[in-house]
């Protein structure tokens, strides 16, 4: 695996946007599948020690991905992605929201509009994915980032656990 590929994370507080760019060491069709098929999304969407379980997926404009982000304590945070537009192997857009276990949106967090763009790079050997997250307001953006902070912190702890375990096996 190539480790020096692009990862860029940019916050634009004036426009309530976060832009993320990442290059993956895989061709475009493979990368597209990883972002759009539940059997793959379940394997990577949640940073460990969280995990994702898809309840339903209907990947088409007007369709929905309904999934739970599950904590190590087995606490379920329900989320939905309501797909708005899909250009096969190029771009999809959706509204991302928190929900209850029945898929009813939780209004306190609002919805975030995601635009995910794919382009083949390096002679189709790699794929660049550009993500634009558009928040309804700075207040909502701060709230969601706060939740992300908690999850990010848990993920960092999980990674540290793995590292320590590996070090113990191979001192």
């Amino acid at each position, binding site marked *: 695996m190539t480790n020096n590929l692009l990862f860029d994370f940019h916050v634009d507080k004036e426009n309530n946007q976060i832009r*993320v760019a990442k290059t993956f060491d*895989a061709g475009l069709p493979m990368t597209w599948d990883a972002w759009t098929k539940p059997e793959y999304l379940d*394997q*990577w969407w949640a940073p460990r020690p969280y995990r994702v379980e898809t309840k339903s997926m209907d990947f088409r404009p007007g369709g929905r991905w309904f999934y739970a982000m599950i904590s190590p304590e087995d606490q379920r945070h329900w989320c939905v992605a309501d797909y708005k537009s899909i250009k096969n192997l190029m771009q999809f857009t959706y509204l991302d929201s928190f929900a209850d276990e029945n898929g009813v949106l939780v209004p306190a967090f609002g919805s975030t509009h995601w635009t995910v763009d794919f382009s083949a790079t390096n002679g189709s050997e790699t794929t660049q994915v550009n993500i634009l997250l558009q928040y309804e307001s700075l207040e909502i953006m701060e709230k969601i980032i706060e939740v992300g*902070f908690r999850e*990010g912190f848990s*993920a960092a702890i999980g990674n540290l656990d793995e590292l320590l375990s590996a070090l113990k096996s191979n001192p």
Partner: protein
Amino acid sequence: MLNHWLEGYRAFWEARFAQLDHLLSTFKSKKNEA
């Protein structure tokens, strides 16, 4: 405070992408074997 949260949010994305990198690398290995 926001900057502090952003560090965590960035870590969240990094951890998420690390798993996708791993998954894609597994795909490639399987494809090369086939």
